[in-house]
């Protein structure tokens, strides 16, 4: 009886351990779950025997500190650094209300993760025949960017997560007692803005509107009409006199600025500060226009030489240079999400598309690029 109970205890312990360790378990498919469960125990043993101490008997339990160093490992063998969602915090340490509206960003990351779960490893041979959808490819590729960020971050990886205990944490001011608002570009569809309103100004405004006024951000679309007073605008009500906000916009290349102020009960707006003007970056190829040429000599003299019209032939040339696939991405305004990406699987997939033999194409157009 005692033995039985002990056995049970051990089993439950193991179970707990498995669920704790095995976060990836949830991610795997049913078949893989089974396979990994079978492999789990020997894998643990092997881990110990792989230590570089020759001739030593493998210990049953590796020392805690040994494990501590490994926790960082993930399935792909890369520390989970850049994986942290970009938009986790909603309230800052200093009590500022950060009203985050950036759900789409985290969604896309989740999507990228989901696609990673589905396709653990893509072999080159598989890719030639694989028919991935557009969205899938983009999500795979943007995952490559994350990988790149991890590699870049590896130079800060010395095997520990936390340090700097020896350094004192200095206190910095929350705000600077001034009325101000600033807007900055995050990407072609997001801007970041932060503002501060002085306590005295806030009191003054409340007296003015008999405590009925509401703190408001008034955004102006100054793309065509550069004067905010007459430009189209919209309001966002906020609650803190010191805070920040992410705003999603529908149109890239928009010019935008904003006011922070108080809106009275009858709709009148009392401005406290105006921001700088920001122009969102473009998301795709510019409209056709003349191609200007310029000569800059090594000594630094510049000569504008000539210009030519942008013709269909130029567009065809660009298509040939990029390949039909990247060209398509560019025209759809999706190039930035994949530019410089690093998933070679996509490289091969795209190459297969790009080097499809077409009549009249250059003979050196390589079909054998992807050989390894």
């Amino acid at each position: 009886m005692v033995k039985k109970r002990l056995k049970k205890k051990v089993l439950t312990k193991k179970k707990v351990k498995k669920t704790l360790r095995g976060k990836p378990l949830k991610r795997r498919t049913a078949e893989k779950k089974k396979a990994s469960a079978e492999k789990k125990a020997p894998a643990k043993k092997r881990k110990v025997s792989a230590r570089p101490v020759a001739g030593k008997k493998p210990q049953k339990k590796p020392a805690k500190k040994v494990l501590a160093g490994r926790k960082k490992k993930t399935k792909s063998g890369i520390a989970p650094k850049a994986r942290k969602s970009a938009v986790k915090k909603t309230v800052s340490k200093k009590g500022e209300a950060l009203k985050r509206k950036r759900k789409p960003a985290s969604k896309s990351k989740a999507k990228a993760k989901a696609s990673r779960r589905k396709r653990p490893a893509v072999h080159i041979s598989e890719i030639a025949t694989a028919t991935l959808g557009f969205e899938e490819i983009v999500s795979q590729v943007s995952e490559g960017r994350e990988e790149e960020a991890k590699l870049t971050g590896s130079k800060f990886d010395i095997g520990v997560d936390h340090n700097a205990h020896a350094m004192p944490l200095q206190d910095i001011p929350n705000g600077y007692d001034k009325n101000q608002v600033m807007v900055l570009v995050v990407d072609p569809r997001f801007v970041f803005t932060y503002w501060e309103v002085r306590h005295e100004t806030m009191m003054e405004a409340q007296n003015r509107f008999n405590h009925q006024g509401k703190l408001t951000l008034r955004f102006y679309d100054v793309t065509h009409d550069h004067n905010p007073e007459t430009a189209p605008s919209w309001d966002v009500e906020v609650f803190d006199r010191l805070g920040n906000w992410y705003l999603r916009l529908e149109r890239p290349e928009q010019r935008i600025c904003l006011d922070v102020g108080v809106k009275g009960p009858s709709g009148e707006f009392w401005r406290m500060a105006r921001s700088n003007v920001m122009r969102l970056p473009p998301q795709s190829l510019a409209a056709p226009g003349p191609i200007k040429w310029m000569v800059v000599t090594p000594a630094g003299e510049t000569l504008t030489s000539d210009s030519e019209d942008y013709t269909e032939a130029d567009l065809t040339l660009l298509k040939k240079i990029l390949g039909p696939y990247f060209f398509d991405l560019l025209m759809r305004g999706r190039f930035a999400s994949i530019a410089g990406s690093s998933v070679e699987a996509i490289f091969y997939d795209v190459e297969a598309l790009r080097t499809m033999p077409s009549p009249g194409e250059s003979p050196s157009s390589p079909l054998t690029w992807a050989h390894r």
Partner: protein
Amino acid sequence: MIRRTDTRQKREEATNVTKGYLSFVLHAHLPYVRHPEHEEFLEEQWFFEGMTETYIPLLDMMEGLVRDNIDFRFTMSLTPPLMSMMTDPLLQERYLRHLNRSIELAWKELHRTRGTPFQAAAEMYNHKLRHARWLFADRWNRNLVAGFRHFQELGKLEVITCCATHGFLPMLRGSPEAVRAQISVACDSYEKHMGRRPRGIWLAECGYFPGVDDILWDNGIRFFFVDSHGILHAESRPKYGVYAPLYSPKGTAAFGRDYESSKQVWSAKEGYPGDLNYRDFYRDIGFDLDYEYVRPYIHPDGIRIMTGFKYHRITGETAHKEPYNPHAAREIAASHAGNFMFNRQRQAEYLFDVMGKPPIIVAPYDAELYGHWWYEGVDWLNFLFRKIACDQSTVKLITPWEYLCWHPKNQMARPSESSWGNKGYAEVWCNGTNDWIYRHLHEAAFRMTELARSHATPDDNLRRALNQMARELLLAQSSDWAFIMNSGTMVEYAVKRTKDHIWRFTKLYEDIKNLRLDMSFVSELEWKDNIFPEIDYKAFA
């Protein structure tokens, strides 16, 4: 020199021997980490690892290439903080201490692994570390910047600068003066170390926004780099895509990153660095061996850290790792170099056919990827340069400056705002984990400009305080802190560094405003944050 090469170049182009150019750009950067107030400081390890695994091997590689009369060219950005650390006597001394300690461990390891499958790797470490000490202490007299300058003067390497403290310009533009100072201070620092003004710049994180190009031109900088979409989304359509530079209206040339060559190297899983025979980055004896054995070589507080001794190869997605075989890995690196060259040849031929002129393929990478993350990366580069020089003539190595000398006529179009971070814009440096810093960075920049304009002729003490304020502000602006906060490792240090510099800056500002300057505090800061000794705060005016 250029003229003679120019003629040869034109002849080669005329006979259609050269189908394209390959321009390698290695971006070497580490944040300024130097803590004289502590005997040992964990984050100084970043610098030590970079030195042993990347910077010294790169110099060694160049020396070998020159010795063997291999004609090679590449571009390297050495950021001002990195140059300052490389030339700092305290860090030089500490690095030598670190190196000596590693060599001591390497001898012990030689005995411990004798007769085991790990012996070959232990011998390699022992040899490499002792060679690194010779290169560092004797060959370059502890100053690696002199080494890079040497190869620049030989015409093999083009060293370019970077933003003064790697400030991410698109997020600093709330204060245009801060953006200008990041560039002008960097150029001055470069001149001090390299003996001439820089011709090119690597904008931190490739962070560009329209307008930066004008500031660059005003500082005498002739070329910079943007990510592919910076060129493709330019204000007018780029005729040759990313395979020819664009001139900004003033004349600064922007080179775009080639996304294909990037992919082959950058990808951790499918790219070269993910090959199963290469060394595994995470298995380190600092974590694997008995605590007492490694105790003298980890952090003095007893925290286990990486020691740089790694004996396993990647093996696969498994916890079980096979022993690392340096010779096999070298063979793989050579074959990967061949593959990379083969792909560039085909790419150049194809592009030459469609474009009717040789393309320039710009392949930029983080320098620390080579050697530090991808241990065999430097060997790969070495093989690649040798193969390109000896085995073919389709692709030619070139620096952007040489390209501009040979092809001074290019399309004029301002690139679009972009970065090489995840998703291509500023999200990595501006999200919920790190956006709180910008309020403080901008305010500090406004205050710096205010004081710089109102104090034209300060007395000696005030000038020292103002210069120190400029140093503190620049150090706070480093994009690394936001990057680390976003990445989730060592966050505490990044937060403390940012707050520390802002706090020091704010205290100095308030002291100056209230006419109660504490010179002992200024002296202490000058001792701790001694970057840019010749800085002039008027850069912010």
